[in-house]
Protein backbone atom coordinates (compact mmCIF):
# COMPACT_ATOMS: atom_id res chain seq x y z
CA UNK A 1 0.00 0.00 0.00
CA UNK A 2 1.25 3.46 -0.84
CA UNK A 3 0.56 6.68 1.01
CA UNK A 4 -1.53 9.29 -0.77
CA UNK A 5 1.29 11.83 -0.73
CA UNK A 6 3.33 9.80 -3.19
CA UNK A 7 0.75 9.57 -5.89
CA UNK A 8 -0.43 13.12 -6.62
CA UNK A 9 -1.14 13.90 -10.28
CA UNK A 10 0.50 16.86 -11.96
CA UNK A 11 -1.37 18.76 -14.66
CA UNK A 12 0.80 17.04 -17.26
CA UNK A 13 -0.03 13.66 -15.73
CA UNK A 14 -3.74 14.42 -15.86
CA UNK A 15 -3.51 15.44 -19.51
CA UNK A 16 -1.46 12.40 -20.36
CA UNK A 17 -3.93 10.13 -18.59
CA UNK A 18 -6.96 11.74 -20.25
CA UNK A 19 -5.35 11.38 -23.69
CA UNK A 20 -4.73 7.70 -23.01
CA UNK A 21 -8.21 7.11 -21.66
CA UNK A 22 -9.83 8.90 -24.59
CA UNK A 23 -7.74 6.90 -27.03
CA UNK A 24 -8.61 3.66 -25.29
CA UNK A 25 -12.32 4.20 -24.57
CA UNK A 26 -13.51 7.26 -26.48
CA UNK A 27 -14.49 8.86 -23.20
CA UNK A 28 -13.44 12.47 -22.58
CA UNK A 29 -12.65 13.71 -19.11
CA UNK A 30 -12.91 17.47 -19.00
CA UNK A 31 -10.95 19.58 -16.50
CA UNK A 32 -14.13 19.78 -14.41
CA UNK A 33 -13.72 16.08 -13.69
CA UNK A 34 -10.19 16.58 -12.40
CA UNK A 35 -10.92 15.97 -8.76
CA UNK A 36 -13.00 12.89 -9.51
CA UNK A 37 -10.37 11.35 -11.78
CA UNK A 38 -7.47 12.20 -9.43
CA UNK A 39 -9.16 10.46 -6.52
CA UNK A 40 -10.02 7.34 -8.51
CA UNK A 41 -6.54 7.01 -9.97
CA UNK A 42 -5.07 7.53 -6.55
CA UNK A 43 -7.16 4.60 -5.29
CA UNK A 44 -5.97 2.40 -8.15
CA UNK A 45 -2.35 3.26 -7.49
CA UNK A 46 -2.66 2.63 -3.78
CA UNK A 47 -4.32 -0.74 -4.46
CA UNK A 48 -1.52 -1.69 -6.84
CA UNK A 49 2.09 -2.56 -6.27
CA UNK A 50 3.29 0.67 -7.87
CA UNK A 51 4.44 3.68 -5.90
CA UNK A 52 3.97 6.51 -8.33
CA UNK A 53 1.65 7.61 -11.07
CA UNK A 54 4.49 7.26 -13.57
CA UNK A 55 5.21 3.62 -12.77
CA UNK A 56 1.53 2.70 -12.48
CA UNK A 57 0.68 4.44 -15.76
CA UNK A 58 3.62 2.84 -17.57
CA UNK A 59 2.49 -0.60 -16.39
CA UNK A 60 -1.09 0.11 -17.43
CA UNK A 61 0.05 1.03 -20.94
CA UNK A 62 2.82 -1.45 -21.55
CA UNK A 63 2.37 -4.51 -19.39
CA UNK A 64 -0.74 -5.82 -21.13
CA UNK A 65 -2.51 -6.05 -17.79
CA UNK A 66 -6.21 -6.26 -18.37
CA UNK A 67 -6.82 -6.57 -14.64
CA UNK A 68 -5.35 -3.10 -14.10
CA UNK A 69 -7.62 -1.74 -16.79
CA UNK A 70 -10.62 -3.42 -15.25
CA UNK A 71 -9.81 -1.97 -11.84
CA UNK A 72 -9.42 1.46 -13.40
CA UNK A 73 -12.70 1.27 -15.29
CA UNK A 74 -14.43 0.00 -12.16
CA UNK A 75 -13.19 3.03 -10.29
CA UNK A 76 -14.12 5.51 -12.99
CA UNK A 77 -17.60 4.28 -13.87
CA UNK A 78 -20.77 3.95 -11.91
CA UNK A 79 -21.42 0.27 -11.36
CA UNK A 80 -24.67 0.32 -9.50
CA UNK A 81 -27.54 -1.58 -11.02
CA UNK A 82 -31.14 -0.71 -10.36
CA UNK A 83 -34.54 -0.88 -12.04
CA UNK A 84 -35.06 1.40 -15.03
CA UNK A 85 -31.41 2.44 -15.19
CA UNK A 86 -30.62 4.53 -18.29
CA UNK A 87 -34.25 4.11 -19.24
CA UNK A 88 -34.05 6.59 -22.12
CA UNK A 89 -32.91 3.49 -24.01
CA UNK A 90 -36.09 1.67 -23.04
CA UNK A 91 -37.92 4.76 -24.35
CA UNK A 92 -36.05 4.30 -27.64
CA UNK A 93 -36.94 0.62 -27.67
CA UNK A 94 -40.63 1.40 -27.36
CA UNK A 95 -40.86 4.43 -29.61
CA UNK A 96 -38.58 3.45 -32.49
CA UNK A 97 -36.81 0.12 -32.23
CA UNK A 98 -39.73 -2.24 -31.68
CA UNK A 99 -41.92 -0.55 -34.31
CA UNK A 100 -39.02 -0.89 -36.77
CA UNK A 101 -38.52 -4.51 -35.81
CA UNK A 102 -42.20 -5.27 -36.30
CA UNK A 103 -42.31 -3.47 -39.63
CA UNK A 104 -39.25 -5.36 -40.86
CA UNK A 105 -40.80 -8.68 -39.85
CA UNK A 106 -44.13 -8.14 -41.55
CA UNK A 107 -46.10 -6.32 -38.88
CA UNK A 108 -47.97 -7.61 -35.83
CA UNK A 109 -50.34 -9.65 -37.94
CA UNK A 110 -47.79 -11.46 -40.08
CA UNK A 111 -44.72 -11.79 -37.89
CA UNK A 112 -43.60 -15.39 -37.49
CA UNK A 113 -41.84 -16.26 -34.28
CA UNK A 114 -41.45 -14.14 -31.17
CA UNK A 115 -39.71 -10.83 -30.82
CA UNK A 116 -36.57 -11.74 -28.88
CA UNK A 117 -34.85 -9.40 -26.46
CA UNK A 118 -31.58 -10.17 -24.68
CA UNK A 119 -30.08 -8.48 -21.65
CA UNK A 120 -26.40 -9.37 -21.39
CA UNK A 121 -25.02 -9.02 -18.79
CA UNK A 122 -28.26 -9.20 -16.86
CA UNK A 123 -26.46 -9.11 -13.51
CA UNK A 124 -28.99 -9.47 -10.67
CA UNK A 125 -31.92 -9.14 -13.07
CA UNK A 126 -33.02 -5.51 -12.82
CA UNK A 127 -32.48 -4.92 -16.53
CA UNK A 128 -34.52 -7.79 -18.01
CA UNK A 129 -37.30 -7.32 -15.46
CA UNK A 130 -37.34 -3.58 -16.23
CA UNK A 131 -37.79 -4.44 -19.89
CA UNK A 132 -40.66 -6.75 -19.02
CA UNK A 133 -42.41 -4.07 -16.97
CA UNK A 134 -42.08 -1.39 -19.62
CA UNK A 135 -43.35 -3.72 -22.32
CA UNK A 136 -46.36 -4.77 -20.29
CA UNK A 137 -47.22 -1.25 -19.21
CA UNK A 138 -46.33 0.78 -22.27
CA UNK A 139 -46.08 -1.22 -25.47
CA UNK A 140 -49.30 -0.99 -27.38
CA UNK A 141 -48.50 -4.15 -29.32
CA UNK A 142 -47.77 -6.35 -26.33
CA UNK A 143 -51.11 -8.13 -26.58
CA UNK A 144 -50.63 -8.88 -30.28
CA UNK A 145 -47.04 -10.12 -30.38
CA UNK A 146 -45.11 -12.85 -28.58
CA UNK A 147 -42.03 -11.49 -26.82
CA UNK A 148 -39.26 -13.56 -25.30
CA UNK A 149 -37.01 -11.87 -22.78
CA UNK A 150 -33.69 -13.49 -21.98
CA UNK A 151 -31.10 -12.53 -19.41
CA UNK A 152 -27.54 -13.84 -19.46
CA UNK A 153 -24.48 -13.42 -17.28
CA UNK A 154 -21.18 -15.16 -16.62
CA UNK A 155 -21.59 -15.03 -12.84
CA UNK A 156 -23.78 -17.74 -11.34
CA UNK A 157 -24.11 -15.89 -8.05
CA UNK A 158 -25.78 -12.89 -9.62
CA UNK A 159 -27.90 -15.19 -11.75
CA UNK A 160 -29.14 -16.92 -8.64
CA UNK A 161 -30.15 -13.52 -7.28
CA UNK A 162 -31.83 -12.70 -10.57
CA UNK A 163 -33.82 -15.93 -10.36
CA UNK A 164 -34.86 -15.12 -6.82
CA UNK A 165 -35.66 -11.55 -7.91
CA UNK A 166 -35.84 -9.91 -4.52
CA UNK A 167 -34.62 -6.31 -4.31
CA UNK A 168 -34.06 -3.57 -1.76
CA UNK A 169 -35.57 -0.10 -1.80
CA UNK A 170 -32.58 1.47 -3.50
CA UNK A 171 -32.94 -0.83 -6.46
CA UNK A 172 -36.65 -0.17 -6.96
CA UNK A 173 -36.70 3.54 -6.16
CA UNK A 174 -37.35 4.52 -9.78
CA UNK A 175 -40.19 2.06 -10.21
CA UNK A 176 -43.56 3.87 -10.25
CA UNK A 177 -45.56 3.05 -7.14
CA UNK A 178 -48.42 1.60 -9.20
CA UNK A 179 -46.07 -0.82 -10.89
CA UNK A 180 -44.54 -1.74 -7.56
CA UNK A 181 -47.87 -2.79 -6.13
CA UNK A 182 -48.93 -4.48 -9.35
CA UNK A 183 -45.84 -6.56 -10.10
CA UNK A 184 -43.93 -6.89 -6.82
CA UNK A 185 -44.64 -8.50 -3.48
CA UNK A 186 -43.29 -6.95 -0.30
CA UNK A 187 -41.29 -9.71 1.36
CA UNK A 188 -40.16 -7.97 4.52
CA UNK A 189 -37.01 -6.08 5.55
CA UNK A 190 -37.85 -3.39 2.98
CA UNK A 191 -37.42 -5.88 0.14
CA UNK A 192 -39.65 -6.49 -2.85
CA UNK A 193 -39.82 -9.59 -4.93
CA UNK A 194 -40.85 -9.61 -8.57
CA UNK A 195 -43.99 -11.69 -8.87
CA UNK A 196 -44.01 -15.17 -10.35
CA UNK A 197 -45.67 -14.08 -13.58
CA UNK A 198 -42.85 -11.67 -14.43
CA UNK A 199 -40.09 -13.97 -13.17
CA UNK A 200 -41.31 -16.74 -15.43
CA UNK A 201 -41.27 -14.36 -18.38
CA UNK A 202 -37.48 -13.96 -18.21
CA UNK A 203 -35.32 -16.94 -19.16
CA UNK A 204 -31.92 -16.81 -17.51
CA UNK A 205 -28.68 -18.25 -18.91
CA UNK A 206 -25.12 -18.55 -17.81
CA UNK A 207 -22.70 -17.64 -20.59
CA UNK A 208 -19.34 -16.02 -21.24
CA UNK A 209 -19.88 -13.36 -23.89
CA UNK A 210 -16.35 -13.95 -25.22
CA UNK A 211 -16.97 -17.66 -25.82
CA UNK A 212 -18.01 -17.99 -29.46
CA UNK A 213 -19.10 -21.62 -29.17
CA UNK A 214 -21.26 -20.90 -26.10
CA UNK A 215 -22.76 -17.77 -27.64
CA UNK A 216 -24.02 -19.85 -30.57
CA UNK A 217 -26.86 -20.81 -28.27
CA UNK A 218 -28.15 -17.26 -28.74
CA UNK A 219 -29.67 -16.64 -32.15
CA UNK A 220 -32.06 -14.30 -33.92
CA UNK A 221 -32.36 -11.65 -31.25
CA UNK A 222 -34.14 -8.50 -32.37
CA UNK A 223 -32.84 -6.31 -29.55
CA UNK A 224 -29.80 -6.76 -27.35
CA UNK A 225 -28.88 -4.64 -24.35
CA UNK A 226 -25.16 -5.00 -23.64
CA UNK A 227 -24.56 -2.12 -21.31
CA UNK A 228 -21.41 -1.31 -19.39
CA UNK A 229 -19.52 -4.56 -19.87
CA UNK A 230 -17.58 -4.22 -23.13
CA UNK A 231 -15.71 -1.27 -21.70
CA UNK A 232 -13.99 -3.60 -19.24
CA UNK A 233 -12.49 -5.82 -21.89
CA UNK A 234 -9.14 -5.57 -23.58
CA UNK A 235 -9.04 -4.98 -27.32
CA UNK A 236 -9.10 -8.56 -28.48
CA UNK A 237 -11.77 -9.71 -26.03
CA UNK A 238 -14.04 -6.79 -26.83
CA UNK A 239 -13.70 -7.52 -30.55
CA UNK A 240 -14.68 -11.13 -30.00
CA UNK A 241 -17.56 -10.14 -27.75
CA UNK A 242 -18.81 -7.74 -30.43
CA UNK A 243 -18.59 -10.53 -33.02
CA UNK A 244 -20.51 -12.87 -30.75
CA UNK A 245 -23.23 -10.26 -30.22
CA UNK A 246 -23.46 -9.76 -33.99
CA UNK A 247 -23.92 -13.50 -34.45
CA UNK A 248 -26.63 -13.54 -31.79
CA UNK A 249 -28.65 -10.90 -33.64
CA UNK A 250 -31.13 -11.19 -36.43
CA UNK A 251 -30.09 -9.10 -39.47
CA UNK A 252 -31.55 -5.65 -38.84
CA UNK A 253 -31.44 -6.24 -35.10
CA UNK A 254 -30.54 -3.49 -32.63
CA UNK A 255 -27.79 -3.29 -30.02
CA UNK A 256 -27.73 -0.84 -27.14
CA UNK A 257 -24.46 -0.13 -25.33
CA UNK A 258 -24.06 1.89 -22.14
CA UNK A 259 -24.58 5.60 -22.63
CA UNK A 260 -20.88 6.47 -22.46
CA UNK A 261 -19.75 3.50 -24.53
CA UNK A 262 -19.04 3.40 -28.22
CA UNK A 263 -18.27 0.78 -30.83
CA UNK A 264 -15.68 3.19 -32.21
CA UNK A 265 -13.10 1.68 -29.88
CA UNK A 266 -14.25 -1.90 -30.39
CA UNK A 267 -15.42 -2.99 -33.80
CA UNK A 268 -16.64 -1.59 -37.13
CA UNK A 269 -19.06 -4.41 -37.87
CA UNK A 270 -22.18 -2.67 -36.61
CA UNK A 271 -23.86 0.29 -38.29
CA UNK A 272 -24.46 3.23 -35.96
CA UNK A 273 -27.87 4.86 -36.08
CA UNK A 274 -28.94 8.02 -34.34
CA UNK A 275 -32.28 7.91 -32.59
CA UNK A 276 -33.83 10.89 -30.80
CA UNK A 277 -32.80 9.24 -27.54
CA UNK A 278 -29.22 8.55 -28.55
CA UNK A 279 -27.01 6.21 -30.52
CA UNK A 280 -27.92 2.60 -31.23
CA UNK A 281 -26.14 -0.01 -33.36
CA UNK A 282 -27.58 -2.34 -35.95
CA UNK A 283 -26.55 -5.53 -37.60
CA UNK A 284 -27.02 -4.73 -41.28
CA UNK A 285 -30.16 -6.23 -42.71
CA UNK A 286 -28.73 -7.92 -45.72
CA UNK A 287 -30.06 -10.56 -48.01
CA UNK A 288 -29.15 -13.88 -46.49
Amino acid at each position, binding site marked *: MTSAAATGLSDADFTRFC*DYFYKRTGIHFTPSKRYFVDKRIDTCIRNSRYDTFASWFAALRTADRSDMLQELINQLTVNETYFLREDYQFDAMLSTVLPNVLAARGGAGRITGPVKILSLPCSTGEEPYSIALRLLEEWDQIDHV*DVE*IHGADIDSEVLAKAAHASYGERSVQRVPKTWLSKYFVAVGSGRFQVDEGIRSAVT*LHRVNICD*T*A*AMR*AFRDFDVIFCRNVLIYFDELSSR*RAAENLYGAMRPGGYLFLGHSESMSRISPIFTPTRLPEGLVYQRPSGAK
Partner: protein
Amino acid sequence: MGLVRKQTPQQPEEVRPEPPDTETLLSQLDDPDPDCRREAALGLVDAAEAVPELLARVGAEEDPRVLESILTTLAARDTEEVAGGLAVHLASDEALLRTAVAAALATMPQSVPALLPTLLAAPDHDVRVMTAMVLADLPHPEAHTWLVRMICEDPHPNVVTGAIDALLPSATAEDAQLLRDAVERFPDDPFLRFTVNSALPRLTGTT
Protein backbone atom coordinates in the same frame (compact mmCIF):
# COMPACT_ATOMS: atom_id res chain seq x y z
CA MET B 1 -49.41 -13.12 -27.12
CA GLY B 2 -47.50 -11.02 -24.67
CA LEU B 3 -44.49 -12.11 -22.72
CA VAL B 4 -43.72 -15.75 -23.41
CA ARG B 5 -43.59 -17.61 -20.14
CA LYS B 6 -41.36 -20.52 -19.27
CA GLN B 7 -43.22 -23.75 -18.66
CA THR B 8 -41.64 -24.47 -15.31
CA PRO B 9 -39.44 -22.30 -13.11
CA GLN B 10 -35.90 -22.92 -14.23
CA GLN B 11 -32.47 -22.52 -12.80
CA PRO B 12 -30.24 -20.48 -15.08
CA GLU B 13 -29.14 -22.87 -17.74
CA GLU B 14 -25.84 -23.15 -19.48
CA VAL B 15 -26.40 -24.55 -22.92
CA ARG B 16 -23.40 -25.10 -25.08
CA PRO B 17 -24.30 -26.23 -28.56
CA GLU B 18 -21.99 -28.71 -30.17
CA PRO B 19 -19.65 -26.69 -32.37
CA PRO B 20 -19.15 -27.80 -35.96
CA ASP B 21 -15.93 -29.77 -36.41
CA THR B 22 -12.80 -28.09 -37.71
CA GLU B 23 -13.06 -29.70 -41.13
CA THR B 24 -16.54 -28.32 -41.62
CA LEU B 25 -15.49 -24.88 -40.49
CA LEU B 26 -12.49 -24.89 -42.81
CA SER B 27 -14.69 -25.74 -45.76
CA GLN B 28 -17.07 -22.96 -44.76
CA LEU B 29 -14.26 -20.43 -45.14
CA ASP B 30 -15.03 -20.64 -48.85
CA ASP B 31 -18.80 -20.41 -48.57
CA PRO B 32 -20.41 -17.84 -50.89
CA ASP B 33 -22.38 -16.44 -47.96
CA PRO B 34 -20.20 -13.92 -46.08
CA ASP B 35 -22.08 -14.51 -42.82
CA CYS B 36 -21.18 -18.19 -43.07
CA ARG B 37 -17.52 -17.39 -43.74
CA ARG B 38 -17.55 -14.95 -40.83
CA GLU B 39 -18.91 -17.48 -38.38
CA ALA B 40 -16.50 -20.13 -39.62
CA ALA B 41 -13.52 -17.85 -39.04
CA LEU B 42 -14.73 -17.04 -35.53
CA GLY B 43 -15.40 -20.68 -34.79
CA LEU B 44 -11.82 -21.63 -35.69
CA VAL B 45 -10.32 -19.72 -32.75
CA ASP B 46 -9.12 -22.92 -31.04
CA ALA B 47 -7.89 -24.71 -34.16
CA ALA B 48 -4.12 -24.28 -34.54
CA GLU B 49 -4.26 -26.19 -37.81
CA ALA B 50 -6.47 -23.49 -39.31
CA VAL B 51 -3.80 -20.78 -39.11
CA PRO B 52 -2.30 -21.28 -42.59
CA GLU B 53 -5.76 -21.28 -44.16
CA LEU B 54 -6.77 -18.15 -42.29
CA LEU B 55 -3.53 -16.35 -43.10
CA ALA B 56 -3.96 -17.20 -46.77
CA ARG B 57 -7.34 -15.50 -46.78
CA VAL B 58 -6.22 -12.24 -45.16
CA GLY B 59 -5.11 -10.75 -48.45
CA ALA B 60 -7.90 -12.32 -50.47
CA GLU B 61 -11.08 -11.81 -48.46
CA GLU B 62 -13.13 -8.99 -49.90
CA ASP B 63 -15.89 -8.69 -47.35
CA PRO B 64 -14.69 -6.30 -44.61
CA ARG B 65 -16.68 -8.05 -41.88
CA VAL B 66 -15.25 -11.42 -42.80
CA LEU B 67 -11.74 -9.95 -42.83
CA GLU B 68 -12.37 -8.51 -39.38
CA SER B 69 -13.42 -11.90 -38.03
CA ILE B 70 -10.42 -13.65 -39.61
CA LEU B 71 -8.10 -11.13 -37.95
CA THR B 72 -9.88 -11.41 -34.59
CA THR B 73 -9.28 -15.16 -34.63
CA LEU B 74 -5.68 -14.90 -35.84
CA ALA B 75 -4.67 -12.14 -33.42
CA ALA B 76 -5.67 -14.34 -30.48
CA ARG B 77 -2.71 -16.51 -31.41
CA ASP B 78 0.28 -14.35 -30.54
CA THR B 79 2.90 -16.34 -32.44
CA GLU B 80 5.66 -15.55 -34.93
CA GLU B 81 3.87 -17.54 -37.59
CA VAL B 82 0.78 -15.34 -37.32
CA ALA B 83 2.63 -12.06 -36.81
CA GLY B 84 4.91 -12.72 -39.76
CA GLY B 85 2.00 -13.77 -41.92
CA LEU B 86 0.09 -10.59 -41.07
CA ALA B 87 2.99 -8.13 -41.27
CA VAL B 88 3.42 -8.57 -45.02
CA HIS B 89 0.08 -6.80 -45.46
CA LEU B 90 1.35 -3.61 -43.84
CA ALA B 91 2.62 -2.89 -47.34
CA SER B 92 -0.80 -3.31 -48.91
CA ASP B 93 -2.23 -0.64 -51.20
CA GLU B 94 -5.60 -1.31 -49.58
CA ALA B 95 -6.03 1.08 -46.64
CA LEU B 96 -8.66 -1.14 -45.07
CA LEU B 97 -6.35 -4.15 -45.11
CA ARG B 98 -3.18 -2.46 -43.90
CA THR B 99 -4.94 -0.60 -41.05
CA ALA B 100 -6.86 -3.71 -39.99
CA VAL B 101 -3.62 -5.72 -39.94
CA ALA B 102 -1.83 -2.97 -37.98
CA ALA B 103 -4.63 -3.00 -35.40
CA ALA B 104 -4.33 -6.78 -35.06
CA LEU B 105 -0.54 -6.66 -34.72
CA ALA B 106 -0.86 -4.03 -32.01
CA THR B 107 -2.52 -6.69 -29.82
CA MET B 108 0.42 -9.13 -30.19
CA PRO B 109 3.22 -8.01 -27.88
CA GLN B 110 4.89 -11.45 -27.72
CA SER B 111 5.58 -11.92 -31.38
CA VAL B 112 5.78 -8.45 -32.93
CA PRO B 113 9.17 -7.51 -31.38
CA ALA B 114 10.99 -10.13 -33.46
CA LEU B 115 9.64 -8.50 -36.62
CA LEU B 116 10.72 -5.00 -35.76
CA PRO B 117 14.28 -5.00 -37.09
CA THR B 118 12.97 -5.96 -40.51
CA LEU B 119 10.00 -3.59 -40.39
CA LEU B 120 12.09 -0.65 -39.24
CA ALA B 121 14.44 -1.26 -42.17
CA ALA B 122 11.69 -1.67 -44.76
CA PRO B 123 12.53 0.27 -47.95
CA ASP B 124 8.91 1.42 -48.28
CA HIS B 125 8.40 4.36 -45.91
CA ASP B 126 4.65 3.65 -45.82
CA VAL B 127 5.41 0.33 -44.14
CA ARG B 128 7.50 2.15 -41.55
CA VAL B 129 4.63 4.61 -40.98
CA MET B 130 2.33 1.65 -40.33
CA THR B 131 4.94 0.17 -37.99
CA ALA B 132 4.87 3.36 -35.92
CA MET B 133 1.10 2.94 -35.78
CA VAL B 134 1.54 -0.58 -34.39
CA LEU B 135 4.07 0.61 -31.83
CA ALA B 136 1.68 3.35 -30.69
CA ASP B 137 -0.65 0.73 -29.24
CA LEU B 138 1.57 -2.30 -28.65
CA PRO B 139 1.61 -2.98 -24.89
CA HIS B 140 5.31 -3.71 -24.56
CA PRO B 141 7.88 -2.07 -22.24
CA GLU B 142 10.40 -1.71 -25.10
CA ALA B 143 8.02 0.14 -27.41
CA HIS B 144 9.45 3.44 -26.19
CA THR B 145 12.96 2.33 -27.12
CA TRP B 146 12.04 1.33 -30.66
CA LEU B 147 10.18 4.56 -31.19
CA VAL B 148 13.18 6.55 -29.99
CA ARG B 149 15.27 4.72 -32.55
CA MET B 150 12.81 5.55 -35.32
CA ILE B 151 12.79 9.21 -34.35
CA CYS B 152 16.57 9.40 -34.31
CA GLU B 153 17.32 7.34 -37.39
CA ASP B 154 14.48 7.23 -39.88
CA PRO B 155 15.15 9.27 -43.01
CA HIS B 156 11.50 10.07 -43.80
CA PRO B 157 9.73 12.93 -41.99
CA ASN B 158 6.30 11.28 -42.00
CA VAL B 159 7.73 8.22 -40.30
CA VAL B 160 9.44 10.39 -37.70
CA THR B 161 6.26 12.35 -37.00
CA GLY B 162 4.29 9.12 -36.69
CA ALA B 163 6.87 7.83 -34.22
CA ILE B 164 6.78 11.08 -32.25
CA ASP B 165 3.01 10.89 -31.98
CA ALA B 166 3.34 7.33 -30.75
CA LEU B 167 6.07 8.28 -28.27
CA LEU B 168 4.55 11.37 -26.68
CA PRO B 169 2.18 9.58 -24.26
CA SER B 170 5.19 7.93 -22.62
CA ALA B 171 7.73 10.68 -23.21
CA THR B 172 9.67 12.26 -20.36
CA ALA B 173 12.04 15.20 -20.06
CA GLU B 174 14.87 12.89 -21.16
CA ASP B 175 13.28 12.68 -24.59
CA ALA B 176 13.23 16.44 -25.08
CA GLN B 177 16.59 16.64 -26.84
CA LEU B 178 15.84 13.94 -29.37
CA LEU B 179 12.64 15.75 -30.25
CA ARG B 180 14.54 18.99 -30.78
CA ASP B 181 17.03 17.07 -32.92
CA ALA B 182 14.19 15.78 -35.09
CA VAL B 183 13.09 19.35 -35.81
CA GLU B 184 16.69 20.17 -36.76
CA ARG B 185 16.74 17.24 -39.15
CA PHE B 186 13.53 18.33 -40.87
CA PRO B 187 13.46 22.11 -40.55
CA ASP B 188 10.90 22.55 -43.33
CA ASP B 189 8.23 20.31 -41.85
CA PRO B 190 5.63 22.63 -40.30
CA PHE B 191 3.76 19.87 -38.53
CA LEU B 192 6.88 18.48 -36.88
CA ARG B 193 7.94 21.89 -35.62
CA PHE B 194 4.48 22.65 -34.28
CA THR B 195 4.15 19.25 -32.60
CA VAL B 196 7.52 19.34 -30.87
CA ASN B 197 7.08 22.96 -29.80
CA SER B 198 3.66 22.13 -28.33
CA ALA B 199 4.95 19.08 -26.50
CA LEU B 200 8.20 20.41 -25.05
CA PRO B 201 6.77 22.66 -22.31
CA ARG B 202 4.69 19.80 -20.96
CA LEU B 203 7.66 17.43 -21.07
CA THR B 204 10.26 19.64 -19.51
CA GLY B 205 7.84 20.90 -16.88
CA THR B 206 7.25 17.42 -15.50
CA THR B 207 9.27 15.88 -12.67
